């Protein structure tokens, strides 16, 4: 038996849609089997909340009376450089951007990275104003050459987040085989396998629940940091051809998605600037993707559990930075990672995460509520993401 997205949306409209989170569905399938579940359940919600570096926002800033062309000039927000190589009033700020004066890692390692692009975005979402400084060469149509002004989201015509790569389908487990502590984008790794970090919501993670991108594609509406957002493209480094397990989930980082959403509707509950000592800044974003239960095969995909999902253990002292040594020193399940300790090279290694499972649950629950209340409808994608057999690859 199969359903269509229109049928599911009709049920949402009439308030009769059955919605479960990707965690709640697990027990239901175990109890009722996938056939019955496919009939009874309409939507499964996934969720994740984690640092995603390839995040940022586009702004279009209202012109002053004497117009100014930021394009080809420069712009900073609270002294953090924004990209101004666009039209007169469009700029983009990336989460990892740092002000010129930041000591970075130079004064004393590890650098602290207290303020940058991610914080500008956080401040604006919090309703604060930031200082725009702009410089231009001046033209007949855009005479103004400099501008310094406090601006908030109200002083902009448009403000939307556009993230070229979010939501990695699986991720490395980072460890340190060397005898010195190292500071990485996967956190502070203690020497000699002193700890291990992972970064995925596992069984709640959107792309783990749709391994072959059957329902998540270009045009899929999502929950994005409190706002409605959309998948607009495969994310950069989308690598669908990665090796997969029998349950179709990848064994290494694989699919990614590019996302867009209106910054004005986002909230601090679902978006936060973060600072990695010794590495830099990034933005934690909340993403919830609904998966329509069209048939039994989709039920099987969304009922995947942490003990059926595996991640590669990678050395970030030599292999990741320099390609020296073994690419993978082990493989562990998300169930093992979540137990607090994994076994690598005959050693018990304590684990921690950067992806918040508590928040991932909140996202999935929140999206479930929105759908049940009739405040969120599903969309059919307009074009699929490149799949496993399309030859799409990424060299990273």
């Amino acid at each position, binding site marked *: 038996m199969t359903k269509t997205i229109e049928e599911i949306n009709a049920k949402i409209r009439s308030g009769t849609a059955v919605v479960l989170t990707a965690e709640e569905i697990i027990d239901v399938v175990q109890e009722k089997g996938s056939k019955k579940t496919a009939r009874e359940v309409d939507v499964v919600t996934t969720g994740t*909340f*984690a*640092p995603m570096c390839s995040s940022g926002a586009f702004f279009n800033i209202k012109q002053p009376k004497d117009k100014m062309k930021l394009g080809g000039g420069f712009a900073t927000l609270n002294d953090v450089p924004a990209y101004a190589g666009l039209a007169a009033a469009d700029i983009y700020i990336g989460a990892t951007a740092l002000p010129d004066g930041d000591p970075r890692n130079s004064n004393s390692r*590890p650098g602290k990275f207290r303020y940058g692009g991610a914080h500008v975005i956080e401040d604006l979402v919090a309703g604060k104003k930031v200082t725009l400084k702009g410089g231009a060469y001046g033209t007949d149509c855009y005479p103004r050459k400099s501008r310094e002004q406090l601006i908030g989201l109200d002083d902009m015509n448009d403000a939307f987040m556009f993230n070229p790569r979010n939501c990695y389908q699986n991720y490395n487990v980072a460890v340190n085989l060397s005898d010195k502590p190292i500071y990485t984008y996967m*956190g*502070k790794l*203690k020497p000699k396998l*002193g*700890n*291990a*970090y992972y970064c995925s919501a596992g069984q709640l993670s959107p792309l783990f629940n749709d391994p072959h991108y059957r329902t998540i594609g270009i045009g899929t509406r999502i929950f994005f940091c409190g706002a409605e957002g959309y998948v607009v493209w495969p994310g950069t480094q989308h690598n669908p051809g990665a090796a997969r397990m029998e349950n179709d989930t990848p064994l290494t980082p694989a699919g990614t998605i590019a996302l867009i959403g209106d910054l004005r509707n986002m909230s601090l509950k679902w978006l*936060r600037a*973060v*600072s*990695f*000592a010794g590495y830099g800044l990034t933005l*934690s974003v909340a993403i919830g993707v609904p998966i329509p239960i069209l048939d039994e095969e989709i039920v099987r995909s969304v009922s995947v559990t942490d003990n059926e999902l595996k991640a590669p253990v990678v050395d970030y002292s030599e292999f990741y930075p320099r390609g020296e040594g073994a690419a993978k020193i082990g493989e562990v399940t998300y169930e093992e990672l*979540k*137990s*607090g300790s994994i076994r690598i090279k005959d050693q018990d290694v*304590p*684990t*921690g*995460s*950067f*992806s*918040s*499972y*508590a*928040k991932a*649950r909140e996202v999935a629950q929140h999206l479930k509520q929105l759908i049940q209340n009739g405040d969120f409808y599903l969309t059919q994608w307009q074009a699929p993401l490149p799949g496993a057999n399309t030859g799409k690859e990424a060299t990273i």
Partner: protein
Amino acid sequence: MKQTKVVLNFPENIVEDPVTYHLIVDYGVQVNILRASIDPGKQGMMVVELSGEESQVSHGLNYLEQVGVQVESLAEEIRHLEDRCASCTSCIPHCPTQALEVDRESWYVSFEPDKCILCLSCLEVCIYSAISVKERLY
């Protein structure tokens, strides 16, 4: 048996006095030093766990105050800012005493001040700035 963790602040003039020696020998208090930063001639700070009979510990604490050592309870020193904490768990493998701990059912992270030995490991690894410490401990 009483056990208590406290922060001892030494003013300049007594930094070089053998205060811990007196605590141990004269008052019978067991002193476990968890963290210390003392420069002779300057102010000093020590995080200690004191244990002994109830009366020994309280006499010991009286002695400390008499000689001018300021005694503060630990809970005042480090704070877990719950509204900033995202329960990411990145502090968990760095906290040596499980003062920061995650409930593996709810997945929320909580802080138990009594278990904290002020090693400050969490301060550096918390990416959400959810740990705050009084300035002078840096």
